[in-house]
């Protein structure tokens, strides 16, 4: 199969909450293996757009094509299985589980997730060890491996952000939607997180699509930026083009 240049194609996506059109006819395409940014003032519909793409928002109009497949109306677990992962603005962790268990959860093809196989450890233990090894690498890369035994509700807010990143990365997504990966994190740290995102992207070819309010950091690492305002994409282009765009400046200042 010939892979198309774009991994994600959105066509005319609209989503209304009662009279409010949160997303209003959005069409965009994200290039495979790139890091794309999605910026815009608060309430411009960015998170709603992510929810629509990842299947957590319910009914909407328009079409979402991911990696050559139409994924409209698919339950979000199937979308993840196709290779499209996401994180949430406020980390949604499994607070009754340890950090390691959180990370390992999303591992794909875990035989032990079948209740008929789970009681026989010899059937899934080798897979579990491989997964644990990968989880360990992932956690080391994000510097959270020493927390493995801690309950995920007992770690700091920044560590929660990193843990959430590790959660999705373990599922080997082809593309990741990150909803403000550095919100509530100190500026220096935002740098680190973006650096590791870029490293991951260049090493594995994973596509990233990132909502971010920290434009300086974002612009340093992304290849392409989409600007959203009042539910519409008002501009897109390379970071340096966006900075000069009068419409974008107006949208932000007019807030």
């Amino acid at each position, binding site marked *: 199969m010939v892979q198309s240049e774009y991994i994600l194609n959105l066509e005319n996506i609209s989503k209304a909450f009662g009279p409010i059109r949160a997303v209003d006819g959005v069409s965009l395409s994200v290039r495979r293996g790139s890091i794309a940014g999605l910026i815009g003032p608060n309430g411009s519909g960015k998170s709603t757009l992510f929810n629509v793409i*990842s299947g*957590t928002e319910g009914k909407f109009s328009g079409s979402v094509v991911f990696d050559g497949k139409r994924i409209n109306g698919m*339950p*979000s*677990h199937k979308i*993840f299985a196709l290779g499209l992962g*996401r994180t*949430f603005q406020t980390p*949604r*962790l*499994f*607070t*009754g*589980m*340890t950090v*390691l*268990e959180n990370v*390992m*959860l*999303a*591992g*794909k093809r*875990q035989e*032990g*997730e079948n*209740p008929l196989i*789970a*009681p*026989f*450890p010899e059937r*899934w*233990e080798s897979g*579990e*060890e491989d997964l*644990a*090894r990968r989880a*360990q690498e992932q956690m080391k890369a*994000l*510097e*959270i491996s*020493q*927390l493995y*035994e801690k309950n995920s509700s007992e770690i*700091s*807010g*920044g*560590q929660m*952000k*990193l843990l959430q990143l590790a*959660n999705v990365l373990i599922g080997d997504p082809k593309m990741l939607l990150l909803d403000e990966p550095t919100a509530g*994190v*100190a500026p*220096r*740290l935002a*740098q*680190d*997180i973006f*650096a*590791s995102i870029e*490293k991951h992207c260049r090493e594995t070819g994973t596509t990233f699509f990132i909502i971010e309010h920290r434009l300086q950091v974002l612009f340093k690492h992304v290849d392409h930026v989409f600007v959203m305002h009042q539910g519409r994409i008002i501009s897109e282009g390379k970071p340096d083009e966006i900075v000069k765009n009068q419409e974008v400046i107006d949208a932000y200042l007019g807030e």
Partner: protein
Amino acid sequence: MVDLIDLVATFATFYGIYAILAISLNLEYGYAGQPNFGQVLFYGIGAFVAAIAAANLLPLFARLPIGNICNVHTSFPVRLAIGSNDPGIAIPVWIIGLVLAMIAGGILGLFLSYPAIRVKEEWYLSMILLVAAEAFVTIFQNTPQLACGIFGLDGIQNPFYWVSNTYSNSSFASTELGFDLPGIIYAAIIMAFAGICYLVAQKLANSPYGRLLKSVRDDKVAAESLGKDVAKVRRQIMIIGSIMAGLAGGLYVFYIGVAVTDDYVPAVTFTIWVMMILGGYANNKGVLAGAAALTLLQRGSVEVSLILQASFPGFSSNVLIYLEYVAEAVILILLLMYRPKGLIPETRIETKAYQLFDFRKRDTPDPSSKQETQETTDVSDSKGKSASSNIDENVAR
């Protein structure tokens, strides 16, 4: 001495059955977060299905007419006689009864998981299951064709009753045995079943499946977004839990001898919940402990009130039993307030994965101190490497 043996056997019987129910509820609520406020329904359906199966199969296997299973003059003595004397019939019928009880529980669990997954607010599910349990009682009480209505289906003999006949007929039984040998055997068997259920629950919990269950409990949306089919998991665990509860019902009805709706009222569900919360949800060992404590309380109050009634003729034997229910309610309220995690709190999911990390822990002196030192080091030049320590530092400010 003989009394004590029988007392222990009775305790073991009730403990085994309660333990199975508590383990089942713990899988459903403790691990998977499904608030089953209608657990007695699955327990009851198991009991009734097993009783109906026994009442029909005992005469059938003995090549006798089945007739009206509710007739106390014809059908009742016939099945009692077959069940008491013929192990070749009693035991297969018992096994079939248990299997059918499990199947019935499982099917009902599957059936009720559909509304369970559909409802919006969390407590609606509790309401629906509670209603289902009450509807079950209403239907069985008012439909005598099912299982003899309010009188219940009587005459279900302990499948090991023949042992006492065999023993008294054997050459070394010079005297009357004095204690209830079939009862002791059956108690041991119930305990064995409880042990199996415990092992199954432990194996399920300490596996990737246990992770899956807990993730569904903690955050359904997040689990779904990480590729987990939440609806499927919720359906599976309802089926697994209901199979266990159905088994408990089947085991119980062959012990108590009669399937009657009075035994399957919401107070039983409540007791099971107290056991689980007392022991510690999402901890099978804790749940076993909780079941032991509550069984002791219940059997204790029954035995003590029997003694008191024998000593003081005016004593109403029910008062202590009522007060025991009051005690359960007080225990639960105190637990919810002061120790919601129970006696033995939830632990981590023990799989081989931890070995990898625990092994490294032994290498490095102390992970917590290491973490602390990292937090205080200057990380300005280690970009991307010490992300977490950086975050710690900055969030702390």
